[in-house]
């Protein structure tokens, strides 16, 4: 796992580039998706997705509901395959290493890719403190001298420290919805992932809480490759560097957010963005 058996080859990257124009101009890909097909039983939900995602950027995935956005996100940390009858074909490269290679354990992959869900889901049986360190505990880190500073720092990153520092022993589920979601982000980044996936992270939040999370997303970009699924186009425009438009399980358009929104190349994208369907 540690040694880079560089299985990714240049030609395929080039092909990817032809779809996702302008993504890799000044940098290398953190995640590369190649010929990805995903299925539930015999029903195909993703068709031949190819895209490269840059490090330290925010990539938004937009599209009407049921277009496969969430599925695409969940193939990147191999969560998709946990569902019944779910199946994936193709490759997803993380730092040029195929995470679907037979010798790769999905558990190891998920450790390197954090995820934030649609509804805030702090573990109800754990305190705020324990929620933040849940992932670290899995790795066998029990030393409070190591954990305490991490909790403080992580909660500061998500802007929760001042609000909860005096009652870290409280249950995570006792916080407000927006606070819970920030706690979940803290939980995801406490294990120092390389990529953070967010599945409609503000879908269940009020506008004020949404604004805080959006600020946080822009902030986190300095450290991580963020991939954010959203059904809210304004949100995509506000927070992302690159935008991918998905329709009926196919990647229709993918490029720098400004270009996608201002000068979409595909008429389908234009129709969606201007609100003619969705």
């Amino acid at each position, binding site marked *: *796992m*540690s040694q880079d058996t560089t299985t990714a080859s240049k030609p395929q990257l080039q092909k990817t580039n032809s779809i996702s124009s302008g993504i890799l101009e000044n940098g290398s890909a953190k995640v590369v998706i190649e010929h990805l097909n995903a299925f539930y039983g015999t029903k195909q939900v993703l068709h031949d997705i190819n895209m490269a995602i840059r490090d330290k950027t925010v990539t938004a995935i937009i599209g009407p509901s049921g277009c496969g956005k969430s599925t695409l996100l969940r193939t990147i940390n191999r969560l998709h395959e946990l569902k019944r009858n779910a199946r994936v074909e193709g490759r997803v490269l993380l730092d040029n290493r195929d995470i679907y290679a037979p010798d790769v*354990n999905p*558990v*190891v992959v998920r*450790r390197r890719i954090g995820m934030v869900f649609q509804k805030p889901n702090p573990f109800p049986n754990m305190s705020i403190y324990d929620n933040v360190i849940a992932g*670290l505990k*899995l*790795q*066998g*880190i029990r030393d409070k001298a*190591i954990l305490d*500073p*991490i909790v403080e*720092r992580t909660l500061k*990153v998500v802007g929760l420290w001042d609000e909860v520092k005096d009652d870290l022993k409280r249950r995570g589920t006792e916080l407000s919805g927006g606070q819970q979601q920030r706690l979940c982000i803290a939980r995801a980044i406490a294990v*120092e992932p*390389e990529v953070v996936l967010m599945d409609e992270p503000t879908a269940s939040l009020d506008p004020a809480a949404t604004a805080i999370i959006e600020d946080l997303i822009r902030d986190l970009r*300095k*450290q991580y490759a963020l991939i954010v699924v959203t059904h809210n186009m304004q949100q995509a425009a506000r927070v992302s560097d690159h935008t991918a438009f998905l329709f009926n399980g196919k990647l229709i358009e993918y490029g720098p957010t400004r270009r996608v929104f201002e000068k979409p190349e595909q008429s389908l994208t234009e129709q969606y963005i201007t609100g003619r369907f969705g």
Partner: protein
Amino acid sequence: MIEERASNGFGKDSYTSSRHWKTRLNIDRIMFFVTAACFLLVLIPLFSILFQVFYNGLRAFKFAVLLNEGGSPVSTISGIRHAITGTIYATLIGSAIGIPAGIIVGTYLAEFGNNSFADILRIIINTMVSIPTIITGVVVWAFVVTRVGHFSVLAGGIALGLIMIPLVARTTEEMIMLVSPIYIEAGYALGLTRMRNTISIVLANASKGIASGVLLAVARIMGETAPLLFTAFFSQASPSNIFDPAATLPVLIYNYAISPFEYWQGLAWIAAMVLILLNLDILFITRLMFPETHQSD
């Protein structure tokens, strides 16, 4: 912030190389087999019981056993007919008490029970379901047997009926709750009175589920032993009327199993086989009638 990341000592590499990963993944694999082994361990008694009952039951079986009344352990023609008759008597009496009373209580809870008084009743009923059945035997002895003056299959049936009431009440309420309120409202909208609506809409629609729950309750009381020990007691002849003491299959199994006579022990196995077959039949019929319910207590 970015500088700090590198310094916390468990950055990018510790997790990829460490033995820790291997241990965790191995524990995961091992636990699959451990839980599977636990499951098999739990199934062993089930299969052993079923196998032994049929093996020993069939080994001792002859048709005469089902036709002959009880008798001494040395006469090898005595049978278990008296116990089958007794079980039928006791179960019928129990059902005659338990089914109507249980359905009334269950209907009351479902239709009129949207208040805290009914909540207390529910707790009482759930507690009654789990009262050790031997206590019911003791109570019925004090209340019925001492009054009648001797053991009787009637007293046994009453004990079984008392055990059945909360079982039937619970299942009735559950099944009525499954009836879609649309039908009930439709009934009222058509001007049906509360009684008509309850009987022709609510109970009619829940009848299948209630019937399956009732059958399970019948199966349950048919296998009860403890409440019959001091009520129906035992006898070596079929009861001629409900005031006679009577043998039942479960009590016969108990009495004969702890007896020193091999022939009687054989009869106990046969009785167990008959009882399990009756039980399985009812379970099977219930599943056929109403595949969605699978409740047990």
